[in-house]
């Protein structure tokens, strides 16, 4: 609780539109001793030393900076006490317009603008007053990383983690290390100049791991469970010698892939004719010196396989639907069943690794047989993106290697040979190719599509949520943040995340190790990891009032909350990303952060002066805006002089997921005429940095609307609008449209009660 606040007004940045001295005077009058210092400074950026001195001499425990947006010059305002910003520039002075759009008098601050600024300053004071410096939930981070999977990526990760000074426990399912790389003695390039095949030197890589004292290897082993939280996970590993329990700080998931079921490639002859193999099988045969065929077709065009699946799907769709299974009862505990996500898609997604792989294999067989072999590469699109174009050029430059674009329309067994029918080729004609072996692509199916790899002992179940969004890959939804999973402290790398070539797997392993190390250190300092990196606050539960309704445990996007048999939530602060979705969910409001809580935002809402006379003084609209997208969009709108209705008051929230229904009630009982929830786009391509915030909020909004309806308040008074961060030119219209709808509805029936 800040009890002695210094309030500073930045004359330079807000003086043009506001009577700043009057604003300062009202702040002094209203808050008295709480605001021990109230100053108007000519330029805030040059008052930093003065503020620092005031903090010392006046024993301030909070500083309120009224001027530009908090998104501006943040590096200048680092003080030893809590700091809050009141955005009087971008979202007040610059965003101001008269309600009737008449020109703003430049001589005197319009009354509505003054009222708005006053509200914002008062809200800022209350926000600080209701905020505390969080003590951190630091734990002793165990400096040990669990690497699941001992293939190419896992071996790289283990060695890199050890090189960074961390102990490693490596769990491998098979009896020996190496995974798929065991069958690839020579691979695609692993480094500059990206031109030629390269021995992978797997033995040396394995030796580096097995010879390192800080790395413990368990082969023939799998994860029985992972429980606890980053910094202090307990991993139980099932080994041939019984379960092994080990403490680890973070996890790198590198469980790789398994080949796509042969049935999907049957239309291309796999499993039908012994003369057809898939690329990984061919690589294994080649390494073992078992390839005797001398005319070989490498077929990259997978249309045959795709069409067969499409046709089968159409037939199934036409067949009468089976009786729908009865839906499980509401609240009935459903046992976890792993959904098999393997599909033909995995073949398509493996296009680049197969293009690169087949080039290498075709070149190798020609090289090994002194070009006595003819290798035909038939492709629709040669997917060798980027620098590997150099490799492509080198590989095809070999006497025995022939390539053409071709639509492969049939692959048939002709007894002693295979016939591959090619159309639309670059040779100016269609032809049938006679070969004695056909190599079809290998579909890389991520292990996470078929198995529960980590076995989380979490309330929300043993698997990663939403794997279906990525067709079973343990991938991130964020283009900018490729290592984010919904299980804090567990970072996927290699082909379990995406089909990758070996060089990319190595790079990926390094990235995942960095994130794992970072997560351990963050847990040790009691701070959050991405995206609120460094945040010391964490949710605190008042269990006395908890009714065990389980909403928080169910809705947490990161599965941070476990529970006991009675259903009482059990927080794991190091899993938490500090979005506040839990407290948004809580009907009893027992969850809070030291510096962000229900009472704080509720108090800010109540601090707004809502006029009684709707007709004369206009409506009041509360906007709860996500600080990550909507709030910056509003800032930029203001900077671009796209003003919006002066009847609105904006409060930034950490995520729309943190919006608790009580805030809407607070606003309604205060007399606000409408509440607008402004957040990001949701759906499969969601942009929420906390995964589900705007989606959850929208769901809750329905309930809120229902409640309002029962109370005789039109449900349209609460609406959620989606806005992307770059829609700054549209957001003012969105707001004004909402204000117009509310104005048409007339005053909130509770106003003045």
């Amino acid at each position: 609780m800040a009890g002695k606040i210094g309030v500073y007004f930045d004359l330079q940045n807000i003086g043009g539109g506001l009577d700043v001295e009057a604003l300062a005077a009202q702040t002094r009058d209203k808050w008295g001793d709480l605001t021990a210092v109230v100053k108007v400074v000519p330029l805030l950026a040059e008052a930093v030393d003065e503020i620092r001195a005031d903090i010392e001499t006046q024993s301030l425990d909070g500083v309120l900076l009224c001027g530009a947006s908090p998104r501006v010059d943040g590096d200048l305002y680092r003080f030893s006490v809590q700091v809050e910003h009141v955005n009087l520039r971008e979202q007040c002075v610059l965003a101001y317009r008269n309600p009737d759009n008449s020109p703003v008098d430049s001589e005197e601050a319009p009354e509505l603008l003054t009222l708005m600024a006053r509200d914002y300053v008062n809200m800022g004071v209350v926000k600080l007053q209701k905020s505390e410096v969080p003590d951190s939930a630091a734990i002793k981070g165990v400096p040990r990383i669990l690497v699941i999977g001992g293939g190419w990526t896992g071996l790289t990760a283990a060695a890199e983690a050890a090189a960074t000074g961390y102990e490693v426990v490596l769990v491998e399912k098979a009896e020996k290390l190496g995974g798929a790389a065991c069958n690839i003695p020579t691979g695609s390039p692993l480094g500059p100049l990206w031109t030629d095949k390269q021995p992978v030197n797997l033995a040396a890589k394995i030796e580096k791991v097995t010879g390192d004292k800080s790395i413990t290897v368990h082969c023939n082993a799998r994860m029985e469970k992972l429980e606890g939280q980053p910094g202090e996970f307990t991993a139980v590993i099932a080994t041939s010698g019984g379960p092994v329990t080990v403490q680890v700080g973070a996890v790198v998931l590198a469980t790789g892939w398994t080949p796509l079921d042969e049935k999907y490639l049957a239309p291309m002859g796999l499993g039908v004719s012994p003369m057809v193999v898939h690329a990984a099988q061919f690589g294994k045969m080649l390494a073992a010196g078992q390839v005797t065929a001398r005319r070989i077709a490498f077929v990259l065009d997978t249309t045959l396989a795709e069409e067969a699946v499409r046709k089968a799907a159409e037939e199934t769709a036409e067949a009468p639907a089976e009786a729908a299974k009865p839906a499980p009862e509401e609240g009935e505990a459903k046992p976890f069943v792993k959904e098999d996500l393997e599909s033909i898609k995995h073949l398509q997604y493996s296009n680049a690794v197969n293009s690169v792989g087949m080039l290498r294999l075709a070149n190798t067989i020609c090289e090994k047989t002194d070009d006595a072999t003819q290798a035909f590469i038939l492709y629709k699109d040669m997917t060798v993106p980027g620098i590997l174009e150099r490799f492509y050029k080198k590989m095809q430059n070999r006497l025995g290697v022939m390539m053409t674009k071709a639509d492969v329309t049939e692959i048939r067994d002709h007894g002693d040979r295979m016939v591959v029918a090619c159309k639309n080729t670059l040779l100016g004609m269609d032809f049938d190719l006679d070969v004695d072996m056909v190599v079809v692509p290998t579909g890389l199916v991520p292990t996470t599509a078929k198995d529960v790899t980590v076995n989380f002992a979490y309330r929300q179940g043993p698997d990663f949520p939403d794997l279906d969004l990525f067709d079973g890959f343990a991938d991130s939804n964020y283009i900018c943040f490729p290592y984010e999973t919904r299980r804090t402290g567990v970072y996927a790398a290699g082909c379990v995340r995406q089909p990758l070539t070996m060089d990319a797997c190595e790079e990926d392993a390094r990235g995942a190790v960095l994130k794992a190390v970072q997560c351990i250190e963050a847990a040790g300092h009691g701070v959050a990891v991405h995206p609120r990196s460094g945040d010391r606050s964490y949710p605190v539960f008042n269990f006395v009032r908890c009714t065990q309704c389980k909403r928080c445990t169910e809705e947490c996007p990161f599965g941070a909350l476990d529970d006991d048999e009675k259903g009482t939530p059990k927080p794991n602060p190091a899993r938490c990303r500090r979005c506040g979705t839990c407290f948004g969910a809580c009907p009893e409001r027992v969850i809070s952060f030291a510096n962000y809580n229900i009472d704080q935002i509720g108090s800010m809402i109540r601090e707004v002066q809502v006029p009684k006379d709707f007709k004369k003084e206009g409506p009041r609209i509360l906007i709860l805006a996500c600080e990550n997208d909507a709030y910056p969009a509003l800032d930029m709108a203001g900077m671009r002089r796209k003003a919006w209705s002066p009847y609105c008051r904006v409060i930034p929230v950490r995520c729309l997921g943190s919006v608790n229904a009580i805030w809407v009630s607070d606003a309604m009982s205060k007399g606000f005429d409408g509440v607008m929830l402004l957040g990001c786009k949701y759906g499969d391509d969601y942009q929420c940095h906390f995964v589900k915030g705007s989606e959850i909020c929208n769901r809750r909004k329905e309930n809120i609307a229902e409640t309002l309806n029962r109370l005789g308040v039109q449900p349209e008074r609460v609406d959620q609008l989606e806005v992307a961060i770059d829609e700054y030119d549209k957001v003012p219209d969105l707001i004004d449209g909402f204000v117009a709808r509310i104005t048409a509805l007339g005053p909130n029936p509770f106003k003045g009660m």
Partner: protein
Amino acid sequence: MSNAILVVGGGFSGLTAAIEAAELGHDVYIVEKSPWLGGRVAQLNKYFPKLCPPSCGLEIQFQRIRKNPRIKCLTLAEVVGLTGRKGDYSVRVRLSPRRTAPHNVDFSLLASTLEGQSPSEFDLGLCGRKGLYKSMPFAFPGRYVLDPSTLSKADAARVAGNKFLDLTEQEREIELNVGAIVVATGWKPYDVTRLTNLGAGSVKNCVSNMQLERLASPFGPTSGRIVRPSDGRAPHNVAFVQCAGSRDQNHLNYCSYICCMATLKHCLYLAEQNPESLITVYYIDLRAPGRYVNVLEKVKALPNVRFVKGKAADAVQAEGDRVRLTVEDAVRGEKLTLDYDLVVLATGMQPSLAGENPPLPVPLDEDGFIAGGEEAGIFAAGCARMPLDVTRSAQSGTAAALKAVQTVKGR
């Protein structure tokens, strides 16, 4: 000895490397040549495959920087000298004058009153910029730049005496002590003037893919409307020329990784803005690696987009400021000559260091990509190393951060 890390380049991979290392507790310096962070992605309208705005991810990165006192950002800065060795480098950095106050000042009104203009580097010459400017609304740091050479006489009088502008500010040099270096100098669009057969940039309404991004951007020269630069009209017939410079021994001897996906994204922009438009894509291979095939399928399903395997041989001006393309249909073996309202050259990426002589002890390959340096504690990240998309650049930056951290750890 120092356990600080220098990151050269403030684009996406550099930012990622810097932030990831700093969040592990290391002091990090970002040295960025331009006035703001964000690099090439700041110029993009949307990312494939999600079609989400780049400023969304940048906002989070900037928040992380604002909160982290360990990160020092030096903009308008260039490394001009380096001595020492792994673990103990002394780096000389030249800081060009910004000529505006070292804090945020809203110069928008003053800037709007200025009349002098220079071609906008940020908008790739599609429009002008003032002598006092900030290229993007999300600029970080949010500070303007004053460029005296663009000021007219009247402009000079207007800015004179403004206490937050300093026309006399000089360039200066500082020295940094670091233990490891991440080089994330990124890429530049291949110079279209070298593509003589494709008009060398002088054919009207023949634009580059990066110019199309600016046209589609809400803060671009047309506020996001994709129009013909010559007359501001929405194009009906549009062609994309893939591998404009890439996969070509005379130009870029590699594939630029992103141009196929960028073109697919551009088809989606166009289809959204003008569902009536007819689009033809001339390509050698459609490279949509991995799950990106879903975007390819989505675009292939559009009724108005056609894909023709074939390379464009020639682009010239036709009547009505249209562009005449001569193309070879590789499958049918036909030569086609067709006129388009707008032609987009999918120009590739060239490493920024190509043709440069950076004062860093790193070997460059013949195309200008970094091909080593690890033994010296210098790690390449992102498109300085190879052509990559944003996701892979972020991975690459994170991986480079690990190597840098290993290098300085325990020192």
